[in-house]
C-alpha cells in the first residue's frame, strides 16, 4: 500500500463558525455543552490524530479572525515560504456559519482559499459544512442548504473543484455523518475492508454489519452501504445515531474510570453485538431473529457464542488487512 500515510486536513472558515467545536467533539470527546468553554483559536492549531493505526490525520485548525485569514491568504501568494499553509493539502473542510450576517464576505474568503489551493494543491478534496443548522427552522433547512451549495459550486467550477456538502449541527448526529464521509475518503485500502466485510456478512447472514473507528466512532464501512439494497424499513440516520449513542456510553463509563470492551443487546427480534475487531476497529453486527428459524434443520439458531467465535476468526483477517496498509 503505497502513498503517504500522513494526511493534511485544512479546517477553515470565518471566526465563530464552529470549527474548533467540531474538532473537539469528534476527536477529543467533548460533549456539545463543553464546547462553550472553547476560546478563539490563535493562528493555526495543529493536531495529529492517529486514525486506523496506519493513518495520521494532520488537522490544521485555522483561526478565523480576519487578521489571521488575511495573513494566511497573503503570505501564501509568495510561493517561496516553505511552511505554506496551502501546500500538500489532501482535504479542505470549509465551514460556513448558517447564521452569518456577512455572507458575501464568507463567500469571498472561500473563493480566495480555493484560488490558493488551486495553485498549490490542485488535487485537494473540498468538503463544505453548512454549520449551526439547529438555528434554522426545520422546514427551511433543506432549501437554504440547496441555495448555499449551488452558489458555492458555481464559484468552485471556476477552479474545477467538485464540492461535497453537508448540513451539520453539533446538537445532533449530522456532524458524525459529515466527518465519517470525510475520513472515509482518506482511507487507502477501504476496498479491501469492504470486500472482506461482505464475505463475513455472507458467513453470518447478518442483517447488517458496521465497522467503526475505535476512538472517534466514525463509521468506516457497512454492508448496507455496499450491497445497496434499499432498506427503507431502517432508519437512514442510524449510523450517526449509533456513533452518538456509543460515544455517550463511552463517556458514561468513564465516570467509573474504565472503558467498555463489548456490548451485547438482545432485543425483541434482533440482536446487536458490538465488539472489538482489531486494535483500531469496533465491529457491530445486527442479527435478525425473526428470520433465524432454519427451515432445513428445523431448529432455531440463536447462539451468541457462535457469533462471537466468528468474530474471533474474522479478527485475524482484519488485523492482516490493517497491517498491510501500513
Amino acid at each position, binding site marked *: 500500500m503505497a502513498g503517504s500515510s500522513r494526511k493534511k486536513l485544512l479546517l477553515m472558515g470565518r471566526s465563530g463558525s464552529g470549527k474548533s467545536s467540531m474538532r473537539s467533539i469528534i476527536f477529543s470527546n467533548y460533549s456539545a455543552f463543553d464546547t462553550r468553554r472553547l476560546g478563539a483559536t490563535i493562528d493555526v492549531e495543529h493536531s495529529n490524530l492517529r486514525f486506523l493505526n496506519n493513518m495520521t490525520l494532520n488537522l490544521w485548525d485555522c483561526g478565523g479572525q480576519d487578521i489571521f485569514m488575511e495573513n494566511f491568504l497573503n503570505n501564501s501568494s509568495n510561493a517561496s515560504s516553505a511552511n505554506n499553509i496551502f501546500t500538500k493539502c489532501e482535504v479542505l473542510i470549509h465551514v460556513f456559519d448558517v447564521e452569518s450576517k456577512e455572507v458575501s464576505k464568507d463567500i469571498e474568503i472561500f473563493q480566495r482559499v480555493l484560488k490558493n489551493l488551486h495553485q498549490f494543491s490542485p488535487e485537494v478534496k473540498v468538503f463544505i459544512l453548512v454549520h449551526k443548522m439547529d438555528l434554522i427552522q426545520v422546514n427551511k433547512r433543506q432549501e437554504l442548504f440547496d441555495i448555499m451549495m449551488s452558489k458555492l459550486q458555481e464559484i468552485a467550477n471556476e477552479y474545477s473543484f467538485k464540492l461535497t456538502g453537508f448540513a451539520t449541527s453539533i446538537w445532533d448526529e449530522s456532524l458524525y455523518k459529515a466527518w465519517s464521509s470525510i475520513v472515509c475518503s482518506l482511507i487507502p485500502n477501504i476496498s479491501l475492508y469492504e470486500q472482506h466485510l461482505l464475505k463475513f456478512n455472507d458467513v453470518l447472514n447478518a442483517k447488517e454489519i458496521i465497522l467503526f473507528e475505535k476512538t472517534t466512532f466514525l463509521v468506516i464501512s457497512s454492508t448496507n452501504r455496499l450491497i445497496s439494497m434499499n432498506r427503507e424499513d431502517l432508519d437512514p440516520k*442510524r449510523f450517526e445515531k449509533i456513533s452518538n*449513542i456509543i460515544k455517550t456510553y463511552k463517556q458514561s463509563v468513564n465516570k*467509573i474510570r474504565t472503558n467498555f470492551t463489548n*456490548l451485547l443487546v*438482545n*432485543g425483541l427480534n434482533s440482536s446487536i453485538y458490538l465488539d472489538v475487531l482489531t486494535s483500531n476497529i469496533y465491529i457491530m453486527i445486527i442479527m435478525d431473529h425473526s428470520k433465524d428459524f432454519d427451515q432445513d434443520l428445523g431448529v432455531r439458531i440463536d447462539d451468541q457464542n457462535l457469533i462471537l467465535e466468528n468474530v474471533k476468526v474474522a479478527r485475524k483477517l482484519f488485523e492482516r488487512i490493517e497491517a498491510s496498509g501500513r
Partner: protein
Amino acid sequence: MEAIDSKDKKATILLMGLRRSGKSSICKVVFHNMQPLDTLYLESTSKPTTETFTSLIDLAVMELPGQLSLFEPSLYDSEKIFASIGALIYVIDSQDEYLSALQNLAVIINYAYKINPKLHIEVLIHKIDGLSEDFRLDTQRDIMQRVGDDLLDYGLEGVQVSFYLTSIFDHSVYEAFSRIVQKLVVELPQLENLLDLVMQYSGFDKVFLFDVNSKIYVATDSSPVDIQTYEVCAEFIDVTIDLDGLYEQSEEASRPTKCVSRLQSGSVLYLHRMIRGLALVAISSFGKDDPRAENPNVKNAISIIDHNVNVFKKSLETMWEGSRIR
C-alpha cells in the same frame, strides 16, 4: 386539586417552597418522567390491599407567596390537604438568602405535623449546581442546624426531617426522588429482600430496579448507593433502549430485552427487562483479582445470572398477580 381531595390517595407528595425556589422545574423534570412509574404502581406491585390509589405520586405544586402570614388562613383547604398527603417536600433555593425560607418551613412543619404526624418531611436544598463543592456541605450543615433550632422553639424536637442536596442538572434530583418515593411505598422491603438475594447469588456489586422511562429506581439492594454507579446504570438504560429501538420494528415477539456489556476493568453491566416497564440493572465487578474475570467460563457466570434474574422476574410477576387478585 381534586386529586388531593379524594381520600383513596395515600401517597401524595406535596411540593412546597418559596417562589422561584425551583418547584415547577423539579415537577417538569421529575413528574414528566414519573408517568411510567405511576402506571407501573397502579396495577403492578401494589401488594398491600390498602393501596387503592390510581397513581403513586401526585405532585401538587402549591405556590407559596414569600410572606408567611399568607399561609396561615384557610384559603385553601389546607387541613384536608395535609391530612391526605404522604410526603411534604420543601424546596429551598440554596443560591438565594434562605433565612425567610427557613422561617416559612418551620411554620409549615408546625402546622402540618399537628394535622398529620405521620407525614414524611423532606427538604430539598436545591440549585446546588451553583455552589462550590466545599460550600455545599457548609450550607447543608447551616440549614440543618437552623431547622433543628426552629423546631426546638416550636417544641417539635421529635419530628424527622430529611435533607437532600439537589440540582436538576445532574442525577441528584432523581436520587432524592427515588428515596422519597421509596419511603412512601411500604411494601418495598419484599422487593429489597429479593434484590439482596439476587445480588448475593449472582455476584453483583449493586442491583437497581429501575423504571425504564423515568430513571427513578423503585428499589435497590441494601448496600449503600454510590451516585456514580447510579448514573452509569441510568445511562446504560438509555444506551440499550436507543440501540434496540433503531432495529426494532414490530412489538409482537416475546423475547426479553437483555443487554450485557463488559468493561475493561473487568466489570460487567447487566440489564434485563422486567414486567411493566421495569428493568433490572446491575453492575458486577469480577475484578481483576477475581478468578472469574480471567476464567474462560465467564460465560457460565452470565448464564447463572440469567437464571437467577429469571427467577426474580417470576417472583415479581407473582407479586403483581397477587396484588391484582386482592
